[in-house]
């Protein structure tokens, strides 16, 4: 009996492997045909399903966070999905698991005949430049990076993160009862400086309005992923009289929000509306809507606008940053005031600082 089972198993494996081989060849033939047509007609990659589709394809390569990182990679992918819904453009993504994946992944997207390729995050800055040099006929775009000299087929996308930071700083200043608020940064650098100094200035603005002194406790976690450290820092801040802590530290912030939950105080989220992490303890979030920026830039490219060779700078005026509309933990009166401040920033009446030099001017 056993022998028969074995024989049967073996036969089954053989059969499957045989059929697998057969179809493999067919599929291979199909796709090679596909690639040859692609070579001759240039960018006719969406030929298979031409149902109401524009002939434009966008690809993105994530950084090592992956596409479900609850942060900007995910946000960027949502932006592309929205783009597909609105325009019918062809979209796809590739995840990087190691730093050495950046270059091959970008190259793979080029091979698939993408018109525009996104690199998500400034870690990919060098890889994008190299890919752009070797593929002068493909457009590249990168989130959170501005080059000193931008090649003609590269677009940098930056956010004025100091603007929403200013707004949440203002909110924190008005909400704070102890007159002491905190800020937890990831790693010192241009990007995080925007958050820190925008926030400080917002708090100062509120302090001036209230006519009292509000101090800002600033500490860096030297990491973007160590949530335990974030929790430790925030817990210390809460126990030394801070009642609101804002974080701009990626995964570290998860710990900050956890600490707020345990201490029964408030945390302010970043990048996305992080209220879902602790509905009772997240006051608001400084949004940086990567999805909006990705969609805006992609749409421009799709419409034939020349987007290369420059850096786009998105802020409140473009609705690419801001705070969530729903803030159940916030006093509605404060929300209204915050909206007024937002308007002032849009007008240019208030220009939030973005680093130590512009702060205090």
């Amino acid at each position, binding site marked *: 009996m*056993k*022998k028969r089972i*074995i024989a049967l198993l073996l036969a089954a*494996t053989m059969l*499957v*492997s045989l059929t*697998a081989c057969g*179809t*493999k060849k*067919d*599929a*291979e033939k*199909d*796709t*090679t045909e596909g*690639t040859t047509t692609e070579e001759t007609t240039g960018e006719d990659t969406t030929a298979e399903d031409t149902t109401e589709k524009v002939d434009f394809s966008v*690809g993105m390569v994530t950084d*090592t*966070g992956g596409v479900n990182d609850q942060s900007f990679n995910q946000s960027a992918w949502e932006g592309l999905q929205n783009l597909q819904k609105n325009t019918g453009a062809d979209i*796809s*993504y*590739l*995840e990087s*698991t*190691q*730093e*050495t994946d*950046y*270059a*091959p*992944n970008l*190259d*793979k*997207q080029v*091979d*698939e005949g993408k018109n525009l390729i996104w690199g998500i995050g*400034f*870690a990919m*800055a*060098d*890889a994008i430049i*190299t890919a752009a040099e*070797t*593929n002068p006929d493909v457009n590249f775009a990168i989130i959170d990076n501005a080059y000193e000299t931008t090649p003609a087929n590269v677009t940098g996308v930056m956010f004025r993160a100091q603007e929403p930071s200013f707004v949440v700083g203002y909110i924190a200043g008005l909400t704070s009862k102890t007159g002491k608020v905190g800020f937890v940064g990831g*790693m010192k*650098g*241009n*990007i995080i400086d925007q958050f820190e100094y925008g926030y400080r200035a917002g708090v100062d603005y509120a302090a001036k309005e209230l006519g009292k002194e509000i101090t800002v406790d600033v500490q860096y976690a*030297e*990491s*973007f*992923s160590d949530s335990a450290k974030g929790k430790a820092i925030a817990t210390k801040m809460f126990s030394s009289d801070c009642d609101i802590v804002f974080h701009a530290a990626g*995964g570290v912030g998860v710990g900050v929000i956890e600490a707020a939950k345990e201490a029964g105080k408030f945390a302010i989220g970043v990048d996305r509306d992080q209220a879902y992490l602790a509905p009772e303890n997240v006051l608001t979030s400084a949004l940086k809507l990567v999805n909006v920026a990705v969609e805006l830039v992609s749409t421009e490219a799709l419409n034939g606008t020349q987007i290369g060779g420059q850096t786009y700078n998105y802020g409140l005026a473009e609705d690419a940053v801001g705070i969530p509309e729903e803030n159940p933990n916030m006093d509605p009166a404060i929300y209204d005031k915050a909206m007024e401040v937002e308007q002032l920033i849009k007008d240019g009446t208030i220009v939030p600082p973005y680093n130590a030099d512009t702060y205090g001017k």
Partner: protein
Amino acid sequence: MEKIVNLLKKQITSTIIAILCGFIVVAILLTLTGYSPFEAFGILFNGIFSKPKYISQVIIKATPIILTGISVAFAFKVGLFNIGAEGQYIMGTIAATVAGILFDFPPVLQIPVVVLSGVCAGGIYGAIVGFLKAKYGIHEVITSIMLNWIAFYLGNFVVNTQRFHQPDSTGTYIINESGFTMFLYGWKRSEEGKAFLMEHPVLLDVILKTDVNFGIVFAIIVAVAVAILLKKTTKGYELRSVGFNKDAAEFAGIDVKKNILHAMLIAGAVAGLAGALTITGMSPHKISTMGTFENYGFNGMSVALIAGSSPIGCIFAGLLFAGLLYGGGSLQSAIGAPSEIINIMIGTIVFFVALTKIVPVLADKLVKRGEKHAR
């Protein structure tokens, strides 16, 4: 009958069966999740073989995991489970990056300096594990897991030191170009090189658009060297006897402690070499702050397992592994199948390889049954 049984008893047969099983499981999974498995496998193979460039990418990607695979396989032959290949790899990258940034000799000197510093760092790191095991009998799995984390955080620490951290980035500076081990690097970036390559699209693809490097040559040399060391030398005989039976080896007059130390030193050096070659041969030529392990060492464990701890087998297992990882990317962008599918496939293959011990047993049973019937 005899022939089939003999065939089944061979390691290679069971490995191939395991690989097929992996494909079958993934095919079922793809069908269940609503993707056509045939289309998916078509894309996968196409993503590996359809262009010379892809094959070259697979080889590039395979280089480090072949080496970490050899590291694990070698230690395994001496009866040690080198789970610390990850840490030794990281130490290799750190040392190579530091040396590559600090020194700027001409390439003839720079490359050996950078690569050797990686090898030494990995070797010393492995030797710590070997020393603790030999001298105090502390289990190598425990020490090397701990050392993995120490290497991990040491890497993050080095990235953030003033001397090496590149401002406004998550990484260090790039190592000096004199340490690059890419094939024709200077020439392909020069004007005449570019002009020549533009006229030869295939070469353009393979040379300019990938980081073709000498790493694979090192990997093959190491594989052969380790195989010879194990099979043809007295030292190899000693090492293997320690692996088979420590007590018997000791009784036969072999210094077990010394051999454990040496085995871990060599295993660590090979993993460190993998790290160094990644830094010199592949962009971004630097280390960055890590959030999680990059899994070069852990993938090496899978490679060693698939290869059945044969150093030469590691070359092929590494290529298979890298091919699946690289081709898997195409699955993601072409039909939107999640990358987890590929990981499940690799996991299944490793699982079935681990199960392949069953195949020879089954084969034995076949023979016995046959004998019974004959009577």
